[in-house]
């Protein structure tokens, strides 16, 4: 593979020169979150075809992405977990969101259709705390009048690996239930009180499919592509919403981005009748002071291009793209990413 790439690179370089491509063929590198990796890869492919510029993205996990950008081994890092403004300032980093996704509670209840069970954040927290042990628990029943709930034990399935999905899910539970906040809390890995852990989305999905009465949580794209039985959730406005692209976008639209310094914003439990409560954006991290202004320029050029031309491709992969006003805000924030001369590296 490596040999192949080594052999190909000079060839494509020569080809790019021969075609008299605009400017020089740039190659930018990034590393981090696995959740947006498919859409970054798709964008990079199209971007290369259109501009002859390369993007090399390594999906090593959000924690790894933060480590790599701090070590300066990549041009940009990527994280599902937004960095707080003070952390950004301390490390000289700047972050901005790219795409939005949602976390979906999925279940294995034979005979039940997707959306037939209704759950609130509080009920979900009590299930994951092990306080609600059976599907026909009076608390679940009180939210599901007229539904014949089975008398079977609930098996809780969670992620075993540290992940942005778990971070969103547990942070949401912390917001909904003080008992959860005081206990496991919100983090990309926590001390789960009950249940079993599957590795990755597919590990969770496999355990849910194999266990009658189980409940788990996966990324939306995964739940959709595998047609898993999801629950309706009650949002902040008290409405019952289904996990779908429109409802994630609604949560993103209600979020107060202009009031969030450094784009530090969790899209959890947003107001609005259609907002899906467990929504989150994924972020790019760059150094505020670029030692190599050309590299900084190339990274921002790529994301500028993606904001302009990448929405359809992202939607095809079941990601939700940022609303236009948010994109405009992000573009404005790029003014503070500067080169050694203090001038913005882009445009």
């Amino acid at each position, binding site marked *: 593979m490596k040999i192949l790439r080594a052999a190909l690179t000079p060839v494509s370089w020569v080809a790019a020169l021969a075609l008299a491509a605009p400017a020089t063929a740039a190659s930018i590198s990034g590393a981090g979150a696995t959740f947006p990796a498919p859409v970054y890869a798709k964008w990079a492919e199209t971007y290369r075809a259109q501009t002859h510029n390369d993007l090399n993205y390594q999906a090593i996990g959000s*924690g790894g992405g933060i*480590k790599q950008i701090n070590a300066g081994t990549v041009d940009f890092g990527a994280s599902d977990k937004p960095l707080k403004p003070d952390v950004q300032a301390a490390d000289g980093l700047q972050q901005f969101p790219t795409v939005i996704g949602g976390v979906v509670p999925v279940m294995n209840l034979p005979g039940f259709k997707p959306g037939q069970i209704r759950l609130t954040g509080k009920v979900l927290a009590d299930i994951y705390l092990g306080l609600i042990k059976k599907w026909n628990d009076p608390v679940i029943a009180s939210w599901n009048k007229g539904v014949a709930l089975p008398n079977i034990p609930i098996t809780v399935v969670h992620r075993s*690996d*540290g992940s942005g999905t778990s971070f969103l899910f547990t942070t949401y539970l912390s917001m909904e239930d003080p008992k959860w906040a005081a206990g496991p809390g*919100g983090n990309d*890995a926590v001390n789960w009180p009950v249940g*079993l852990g599957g590795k990755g989305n597919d590990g969770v999905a*496999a*355990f849910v499919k194999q266990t009658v009465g189980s409940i788990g949580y996966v990324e939306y794209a995964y739940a959709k592509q595998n047609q898993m039985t999801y629950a309706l959730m009650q949002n902040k406005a008290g409405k019952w919403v289904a996990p779908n692209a429109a409802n994630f976008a609604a949560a993103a639209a209600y979020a107060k981005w202009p009031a969030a310094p450094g784009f530090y914003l969790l899209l959890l439990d947003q107001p609005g009748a259609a907002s899906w409560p467990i929504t989150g954006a994924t972020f790019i991290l760059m150094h505020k002071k670029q030692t190599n202004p050309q590299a900084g320029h190339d990274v921002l050029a790529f994301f500028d291009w993606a904001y302009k031309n990448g929405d359809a491709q992202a939607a095809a992969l079941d990601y939700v793209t940022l609303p236009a006003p948010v994109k405009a805000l992000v573009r404005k924030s790029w003014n503070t990413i500067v080169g050694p001369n203090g001038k913005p590296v882009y445009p």
Partner: protein
Amino acid sequence: MSIVLNAPPRRGTPRGATFEPVFEGLCFGAATALLVALGGVLVSLAIGGWPALSRFGLNFITGVTWDPNPDHEVYGAAGPIVGTLITSAAALAMALPVAGGVAFFLVELCPTFLRRPIGTAVELLAGIPSIVYGMWGLFVFAPFFAAHVETPLMSAAPPGSFWETLFSGIPNGSGMLAASIILAIMILPFMAATLRELLNTVPPQVRESAYGLGATTAEVVLSVTLPYIRRGAIGAVMLGLGRALGETMAVTFIIGNSHAFPKGLFDSGSTIASTIANEFNEASGLQSAALIALGLVLFVITFTVLALARLLLRTQVRA
């Protein structure tokens, strides 16, 4: 002119002589490099894990709470340590008799035309990457195990009995026993292949004299060939146990990854290797230190097991 004549007669240097010091140096270098690498790993694990070890002390080994939330970080690794020991021991107990059977069959009983295909199959099994075992375990073995082993056993256990506790857990094919079985399947070919090689080293005269004295196959195996290969056989077992202790991906897929103490055979657990694999990606600060310290614990466990095996062997030989 005269100087040349008075010089001692020149002897041609033997061809090997120039190469000899190089060869000795290379061998010495290889042997020291191994020791240095071993020491380096040990030292770097100790340094990397020190923040966690110094903060939690003995509680790191005996504590049962593993809480990676930075707001209230506590790392007690008793769950993963016990999980590692139980799954490895159970896997060894299941795999060793079968591996012995395979090896004895191949060497003593197998018709010649079958010897080669079965031997190759065993070696091929040993070459399957562990991630493949993991995926097979999760998607093929677990549903089968749940439907045909766990559910019947759980429903057959009388309420309130010891059996009910033993068979407690979630009947979905994951858990301690399922992980042990997958591990047993993984270490089986290793041990079978090594045992077969060992049995082949038994001189034919020894074996044939025993047969000549009228011994049955079982008697030959138990009283002649087995004692002959005893020393090597313990090595083969240790090789299998070593792989079971350190196996990561296959176990991670199927053990259920719960840091608590497993309560029954079908309950979820975790091992040291699976915990490291699960959490290292996203870990930072004290959590990375705790995971590195876990690595050190695994190192010590493996070393202790090897040392015990050596000790066992020495006392046996003396007796």
